[in-house]
């Protein structure tokens, strides 16, 4: 059946018309597509090329190796250890359960570890690795590496982490490093981009914190090409950074270990200082803690244990602790009076056991009194009334000035946290601080190191050193940075009369070596090693009761300051035993042991001790938790 030609023509005409319209529309649309193509690829090409480069190239920082810290003889105190960890690239892991099952056979992993990883995975940034296990042994990491092909997306990694081989011995000196907190960042104007890199550690306390700028070093960087998932495809460029500078401390690790061990388990602190250079050979605070726990992330329980301990292991008592110096202050009062000429060494005062001033009765620690005392006896037997008399004559301003001369109220520039300034009170100070007038009673209290006077064990050690040498020696903690010796700080001769100084030193000698001295029990009998010192007992409460009758935290602080050898002073030592009771009983023996250890450089021979004490000393030496030379695990007090 044919269609009429007319219809065929009509159909063709219509189709042609419509087809041309359609074709035209298609061409117009294609033109629009071409225009768009041109716009994107030609007009905006530069913009998109930049964006493509941004996509592709990432700048990664190469964290520098943190500077090491050594003791004065090169014993490592803070070093970096390689840590091995296993990370997982979630996008590359085929079956998570299989991978976990396999990993559990290879390395120690608890189900709760895995649960943590499982929770972390969805939160991780695209392309970021999730740490499965940290601080693995070399054997474990080798297992993972060998099984690499069977564990897609699982990679062993090596990193550097801080480690403190001396454990608790330097916890208060060197401090520790930790992750960068938001609070830490908020304090810095223009933070080093390094701080933002994951797992970066900064010094949080102590030398680590205070010399952060020296230890940190300079970051290097590398330019890497990454894919859309952030995976590094190849390295384009690499610029190594600069390692942080190494520090050498003045501290002698062996002595430090001894001191730390000798102080524990008391809540105490001690400082050993070289009287000539000011080098701090030991600066200890007990109890201590293991700084490695902080680096690894301390558990809630361990942390609570440290903060709840009434002996305050986290406090660095040697520089942060401020105590009324008690009778150890008497040398200062005596010097102030002698130098001012308001009294002579030979002048005697009668001590009936108390002194009345302005209707108030000021007691001597010895109820019955000391009778007639001169300067020498007053120090040796620690008579309080003598100093009340001196205070009346010399006045607080002279006493305070002398205290400052000997290192009180001076903030020494050593890189430790929260170094306390202490206080040598003046009339002005009291007016400013309390809005009250200075009364003579305040002077009396101050003269025996009570009342407003406050000093840290470090300041007490500086005082002993200055008394021993007559020089304005100041403490030094950092011996050298990157091999460059750090300057000694010495303000030169104190300008105190040599006769006066000799009189004071002789009295300090007799405190320890004369039968009537308050620290006679703690004398050193070895020739050429004789020790001079002064006991102190600072009251925590005002009512006088026997220390044994009150709770621990209300007992008196025991103090002792010393220098030795008497003939040619080398070391100054200060010891403060918190709530230890009397200075002669609780602090002086400790100071003697420490001094002997410093003088001999090792455990002293028993011959250095008075014959009657040797047996007891020997027992104590043996009981001391010392393992000199090797790493002492868990030195922190439980």
């Amino acid at each position: 059946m044919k269609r009429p030609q007319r219809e065929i023509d009509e159909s063709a005409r219509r189709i042609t018309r419509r087809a041309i319209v359609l074709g035209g529309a298609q061409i117009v649309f294609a033109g629009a597509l071409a225009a768009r193509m041109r716009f994107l690829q030609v007009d905006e090409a530069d913009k998109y090329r930049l964006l493509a480069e941004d996509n592709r190239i990432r700048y990664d920082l190469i964290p520098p190796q943190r500077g090491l810290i050594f003791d004065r003889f090169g014993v490592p105190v803070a070093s970096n250890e390689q840590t091995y960890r296993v990370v997982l690239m979630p996008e590359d892991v085929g079956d998570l359960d299989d991978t976990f099952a396999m990993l559990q056979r290879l390395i120690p992993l608890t189900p709760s570890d895995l649960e943590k990883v499982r929770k972390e995975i969805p939160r991780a940034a695209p392309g970021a690795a999730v740490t499965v296990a940290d601080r693995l042994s070399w054997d474990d990491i080798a297992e993972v590496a060998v099984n690499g092909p069977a564990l897609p997306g699982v990679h062993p990694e090596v990193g550097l982490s801080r480690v403190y081989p001396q454990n608790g011995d330097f916890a208060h000196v060197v401090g520790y490093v930790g992750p960068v907190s938001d609070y830490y960042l908020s304090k810095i104007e223009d933070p080093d981009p390094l701080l933002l890199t994951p797992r970066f550690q900064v010094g949080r306390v102590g030398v680590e914190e205070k010399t952060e700028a020296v230890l940190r070093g300079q970051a290097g960087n590398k330019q890497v090409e990454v894919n859309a998932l952030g995976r590094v495809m190849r390295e384009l460029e690499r610029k190594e950074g600069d390692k942080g500078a190494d520090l050498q401390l003045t501290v002698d690790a062996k002595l430090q270990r001894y001191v730390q061990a000798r102080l524990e388990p008391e809540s105490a602190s001690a400082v050993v200082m070289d009287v000539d250079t000011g080098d701090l050979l030991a600066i200890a605070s007990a109890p201590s803690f293991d700084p490695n726990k902080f680096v690894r992330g301390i558990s809630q329980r361990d942390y609570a244990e440290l903060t709840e301990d009434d002996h305050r292991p986290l406090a660095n008592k040697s520089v942060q602790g401020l105590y009324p110096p008690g009778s150890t202050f008497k040398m200062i009062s005596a010097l102030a009076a002698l130098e001012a000429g308001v009294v002579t060494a030979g002048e005697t005062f009668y001590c009936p056991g108390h002194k009345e001033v302005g209707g108030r009765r000021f007691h001597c620690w010895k109820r019955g009194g000391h009778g007639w005392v001169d300067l020498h006896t007053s120090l040796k037997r620690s008579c309080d009334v003598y100093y009340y008399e001196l205070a009346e004559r010399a006045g607080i301003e002279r006493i305070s000035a002398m205290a400052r001369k000997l290192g009180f109220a001076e903030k020494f520039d050593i890189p430790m946290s929260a170094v306390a300034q202490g206080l040598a009170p003046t009339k002005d100070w009291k007016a400013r601080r309390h809005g009250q007038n200075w009364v003579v009673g305040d002077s009396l209290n101050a003269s025996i190191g009570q009342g407003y006077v406050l000093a840290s064990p470090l300041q007490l050690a500086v005082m002993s050193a200055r008394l021993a040498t007559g020089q304005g020696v100041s403490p030094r903690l950092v011996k050298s940075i990157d091999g460059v010796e750090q300057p000694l700080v010495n303000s030169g001769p104190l300008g105190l009369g040599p006769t006066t100084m000799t009189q004071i030193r002789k009295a300090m000698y007799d405190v320890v070596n004369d039968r009537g001295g308050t620290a006679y029990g703690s004398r050193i009998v070895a020739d050429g090693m004789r020790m001079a010192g002064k006991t102190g007992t600072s009251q925590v409460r005002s009512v006088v009761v026997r220390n044994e009758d009150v709770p621990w935290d209300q007992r008196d602080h025991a103090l002792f300051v010393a220098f030795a050898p008497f003939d040619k002073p080398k070391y100054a030592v200060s010891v403060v035993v918190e709530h230890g009771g009397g200075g002669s009983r609780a602090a002086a023996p400790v100071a003697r042991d420490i001094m002997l250890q410093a003088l001999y450089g090792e455990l002293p021979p028993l011959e250095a001790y008075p014959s009657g004490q040797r047996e007891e000393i020997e027992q104590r030496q043996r009981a001391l938790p010392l393992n000199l030379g090797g790493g002492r695990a868990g030195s922190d007090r439980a």
Partner: protein
Amino acid sequence: MSFLEYNVKTVPTGLSKVLYLNWVLIILLITIASIGFLALYSVAGGDIGRWAEPQMKRFALGFVGMLVVAMVPVYFWRNTAALAYVLSLGLLVLVELIGATGGGAQRWIDLGFMRLQPSEVAKITLVMLLAAYYDWLDLKKTSRLMWVIIPVVLILLPTFLVLRQPDLGTALLLVAGGGLVMFAAGVHWGYFAAVIASGVAVVTAAFQSRGTGWQLIADYQYDRIDTFLNPSQDPLGDGYHITQSKIALGSGGWTGKGLLQGTQSQLNFVPEKHTDFILTTFAEEFGFIGAFSLLVLYCLVLFFCITSALQNKDRFSSLLILGVAVTFFLYFAVNMSMVMGLAPVVGVPLPLVSYGGSAMLVLMLAFGLVQSAHVHRPRMRA
């Protein structure tokens, strides 16, 4: 009632038909497919085996299929159009029942050697049926309401099935393709105006229904449209596709970064880089010159199809060729608009270039129909 029968004897027969194929069109198709192989080779990071080789095999298969279809007299295809349409509807129902899910939608049936997407098949069978319908229909009735409703129903049947999968892109392509065949057949302008108006109404309704119980399209489809309207709003989620695609294209510049040098695609910044977004790979590595050349090739295919349709006095053949051309146009126009950020991301492949079996095979068979119509066109007696 056919237009063909009066001069069927002048039509070439036997193997001599090969000489009458539209060889220019064939060469264009081979060129475009080769660009696809190159792009797939590059996008696999220089690996032929991953995508390029399977694609070549499919093209070869499609090419043979095209020749076979071309050899069969075009009236056979007209007579079987209804059957083909019903079969493809059947496949769409089948995919609804047993179809495999990919990308959140039921779209394909696993045949073992390939995954068949019935929605791709439906695009062509719809065109066939509409061409046959208008060939059969009395010219005078073309614009009568009754005879307009029938093809509309024919279009909407597969459209609804595809929407259920849900595949918004293909559904829109079906409507547009069918509608354009009706337009070519000469249906009155007024109907199209009405349909466009109601289309606007439907879109409004789709957005109005969002979040209600009678929501017309799926949430992810709303999201894609939102993202299209404002890609920077969600640069790491859905907007990521469009943004990265534009970066890839734009960074190609005039001449491109060179084969295998496109960082955006080689480093996986471009999503679906071997399928829907393959243009970005090509444009990144071969620049504006490359991408524009591809666009010109596509336009040449359209041009030769339309010329062939205009030369053809057989109503079915003309409409069939125009229908295939329009479908082809819709493929590349929508795909290119999408990757260049002119249209929302709807899953439409770049014809003959994107990796994928169904679209490639169906398109090649469709060009077989074009060739058949071309070879068997009625010729005037000398």
